[in-house]
C-alpha cells in the first residue's frame, strides 16, 4: 500500500508536505527564529526581509515564527477532533451495522439529524453554546465529524456482517465484542483510514474558519485561522500577514486531500465526500 502511494508523484508530494508539517508541529519551538508572541511595536507591519522572511504583523511579531507555531495548534486540534470522531463514529456505525434493527434505526436517525446541518454551522452552534476557545473548537469539530464516520463504518459493516466468516464466528458462539474486534473492524478499516485522512484536512480548515470568526483560538495563541483574522484588517497595508498563513493552510489541506485520494486508490474503496462542502 505504501509502495503504491510512493509510486505516484502526488503521493510523494503529500507525504513530503505532511512530514514537514508534522516535523514543524513537533519541533516548532526549536526552529522558530523568534518567540511567537514577542512583541515589538516599533517594528510593526514590516514587509518580508532577511530578518523576517514572512514579514511582521500589526504588533511587530514575526509572521514566520507564528506560522510555524500555528502548525502545532492546528495539528493538535485536527488530530484530537478527528480521533474523537473516528472513535465515536466508528463505534456507533459498527453497532448499527452489526446489530441492525431498532438500534440501527435509532443511531442512524440521530446521525441523519446531525448530518442535516452544514458542518460549520453545527460547529458554530456548539461553540456558541460552550463559549469560544481552542478546547471547545476541538470538541465541536469532533462532534460534527462523528456522523460521517458513523455512516462510513455502518455501510461497510452492513456488508461485512453478511460475509461467511462473520456468520461462522457468530455460529460458533463468539461474543459480539469479539466478532466485532477481530473480524469486523479489520475488514472495514480501509475506508475509515481514507476518511480519516480527508477529515484531517477539513478539520484544519474548520479550525481555521472558527478561529477566523474569533471563536477558536484566543489571542495571543497563534493559529493559521487566527492569523488570517488578524490580517483581514490589514490587507491593503500588509499582504504578507494573510498570504503566508493562508498558503500554509492551503498546502496542508491539499496534502491531506492528495494523501486521501492516493489511499483511496491504493486501498480501492469508495468514500462519502459530503463533508467537502
Amino acid at each position, binding site marked *: 500500500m505504501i509502495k503504491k502511494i510512493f509510486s505516484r508523484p502526488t503521493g510523494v508530494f503529500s507525504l513530503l508536505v505532511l512530514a514537514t508539517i508534522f516535523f514543524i508541529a513537533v519541533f516548532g519551538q526549536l526552529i522558530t527564529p523568534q518567540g511567537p508572541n514577542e512583541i515589538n511595536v516599533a517594528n510593526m507591519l514590516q514587509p518580508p526581509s532577511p530578518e523576517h522572511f514572512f514579514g511582521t504583523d500589526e504588533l511587530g511579531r514575526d509572521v514566520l515564527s507564528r506560522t510555524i507555531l500555528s502548525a502545532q495548534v492546528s495539528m493538535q486540534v485536527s488530530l484530537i477532533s478527528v480521533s474523537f470522531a473516528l472513535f465515536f463514529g466508528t463505534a456507533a456505525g459498527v453497532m448499527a451495522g452489526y446489530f441492525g434493527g431498532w438500534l440501527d434505526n435509532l443511531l442512524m436517525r440521530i446521525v441523519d439529524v446531525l448530518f442535516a446541518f452544514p458542518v460549520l454551522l453545527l460547529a458554530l452552534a456548539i461553540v456558541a453554546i460552550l463559549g469560544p476557545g481552542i478546547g471547545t473548537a476541538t470538541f465541536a469539530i469532533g462532534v460534527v465529524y462523528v456522523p460521517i464516520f458513523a455512516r462510513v463504518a455502518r455501510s461497510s459493516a452492513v456488508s461485512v456482517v453478511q460475509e461467511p466468516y462473520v456468520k461462522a464466528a457468530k455460529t460458533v458462539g463468539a461474543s459480539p465484542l469479539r466478532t466485532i474486534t477481530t473480524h469486523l473492524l479489520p475488514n472495514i478499516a480501509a475506508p475509515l483510514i481514507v476518511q480519516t485522512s480527508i477529515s484531517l484536512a477539513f478539520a484544519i480548515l474548520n479550525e481555521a474558519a472558527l478561529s477566523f470568526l474569533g471563536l477558536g483560538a*484566543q489571542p495571543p495563541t497563534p493559529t493559521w485561522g487566527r492569523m488570517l483574522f488578524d490580517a483581514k484588517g490589514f490587507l491593503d497595508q500588509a499582504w504578507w500577514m494573510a498570504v503566508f498563513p493562508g498558503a500554509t493552510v492551503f498546502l496542508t489541506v491539499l496534502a491531506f486531500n492528495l494523501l486521501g485520494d492516493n489511499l483511496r486508490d491504493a486501498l480501492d474503496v469508495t468514500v462519502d465526500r459530503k463533508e467537502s462542502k
Partner: protein
Amino acid sequence: MRTKNGNTLKKTIGATAVSAALLLSLAACATDEPEPVENGDDASPSTSTETESQTLIAAIGGEPDQLDPHITSAYFSFQVLENVYDTLVEPDENLAMQPALAESWEVSDDLLTWTFDLREGVTFHDGSDFTADDVVYSYKRIIDEALNPSWRFASVTDVVAVDDFTVEIQLSSPTPNLLAAIGGYKGMSIVSQANVESGEIVSNPIGTGPFKMESYDVADSIVLSANEDYWGGAPAIDELEFRFIAEGSTALTALRNGEIHWTDSIPPQSVEDLSSESGISLGQVGSSDYWYLAFNMNRTPWDDVRVRQAVAYALDREAITTAALLGNATVNQTAIPASSDWSSDYAPYSLDLETAQSLMDEAGVDSAEMELMVSSDYPETVTAAQVISAQLAEIGINVSITTLDFSTWLDGQANGDFDMLMMGWLGNIDPDDFYYAQHHSTGGFNAQGYSNPEVDELLDSGRTTADPEARKVFYDDAAKIIVDEVSYLYLYNPDVVQAWSDSVQGYVARGDQAIRFRDASISE
C-alpha cells in the same frame, strides 16, 4: 456610549466612531453595499452649482436602534439626532457652553436657582411653537420616567415655567456643571409632547433643529431635509442623508468613488493613506474619550497598591497606543485630555522595569496570574491586551486574555469576574463626568472597588463648588491621588477621525463627536 445613563452603563453606546465602525464590521450586515447615487429629483453628490437640490450623503457605521433622544443610547442615533434636535445650551468646538434654545441665563446668589430666557419665535418641525412648557415637559419626562440621562438631574428638585419664555431650574445643592449636564449631548433634547404621546418619536422625531425627518428606509438610510425656519438660519444643503455602512473599507471606497460625501467608518490603518489623498479632507482631533485599565481591588494581589503601581511602571503606554490605534491617539496618565481646560499634566509613571520589580518585591509578590478581560466588540482592547500581556510578563505577571462580547463583558464587570479589565469612557465634558462615578466610593461605575475618603471629599467638593478655579484644584488633587493609587490606570485619549470629500465646505470634526451638518455646504 455617548450617553451617560444613570442606571445602565454609559459604556454601552456606540463608542468612538472608529471603534463603532470596527465593531460593526465584525457583524456582516446587509447594509454593506452602498448603492450608486441616483440622479433623480435629488442631486448626485457632486452636483452643486446647478439649481437642483443639494444632498449631502454621510455614511455612518450602523443603524440607530431608535430615534427617541431620551431613550436611545446608541452613538449612531445621536449622529442623526444631533441634526434634528436642540438643547437649551450646546457646546462649541472648544466644548464651552453656548446659547441655543436658551438665549441667556443667570444663577441666583445662593446658586440654587438657574433662570433661562428662551429664544422666541422658534417652531418645531410640525409648525407648533416652542415654549417654556416644552422644556418643562422634556426635563420632567427624563426625571419622572428615570430615563437614560436622568442622573444628570441628580441635584434638580424642580423645573418651572415662569412664563412662556422663561424656565427656572431649582436645585438641592449648587451644581456648577449644570450647563454641561443639560447641553452636553442630544440626550438632553427638547422634545415635542405630541410627538412623544403619539409614539412616533421612535421613528419620526420632531425637533427644533436644523434638519427635519424626511424618510427612513430601514436597514439602509435616513433622509433629513433642511428646516428653512431654523432659528440659526436655514442650512446650506437641502437634504442630509445618513447611510448605514458597517464595513469601514466599504465606506472608504464609496467616499473615494464619490458615492458618499462623509464618513467616520475609518480603520486606523487607513488614516495615514487618507491624510495625503487628494480630494479627501481628513478631520482628526483629540477626543474627550479615554481608555483605561482597572484592577479588581477585591482580589489579591491587586488590592496592594504597590502591585498596581508596579504594573503602571511596567507598561509602555506609547507601544500600547501605537498597537491599539496606530498612533491615532494621545498618551495620557490622567483621564482628561490636554485640550480641555480641566486637564492635569500629572504624569508620574514611565516605563521603568527596575522600579516595577522593586515594587513587586516590596509587596512580596514573585509572580501572579492575571485574567485580563477585554471585549471583541472593541478590537483595540484585544490588540492592546496582547501588548500588555507581553509587557507584564517582564515582571512575573502571567496574563491570560479573556475576550468577550460586550454584554458578557458587562456582566463580568458587574460580577467582579476579572483581575484587570480594559475599556473606555466616551463623550465626557465636565470633570465630574470623568471622575465621580468611577472613583467615588459610592460611584455607580466603581467596579474596581476603589475607596478613599479623601478622594470622595474632593469629588464631592468639585460637584458643589461654583468657582471654576477652585473646582480645578479639587479635580487636580483628586486625579493625583487616583493616579498614584492606580484606581484606574489611564492609557490614552483617542482621536476622532472623520473624512469627507473636498467638495464639502464648512464642516468641522469635533472632539465631542457631535456630527453637525447645519453649516456644511457642497461645492464643485
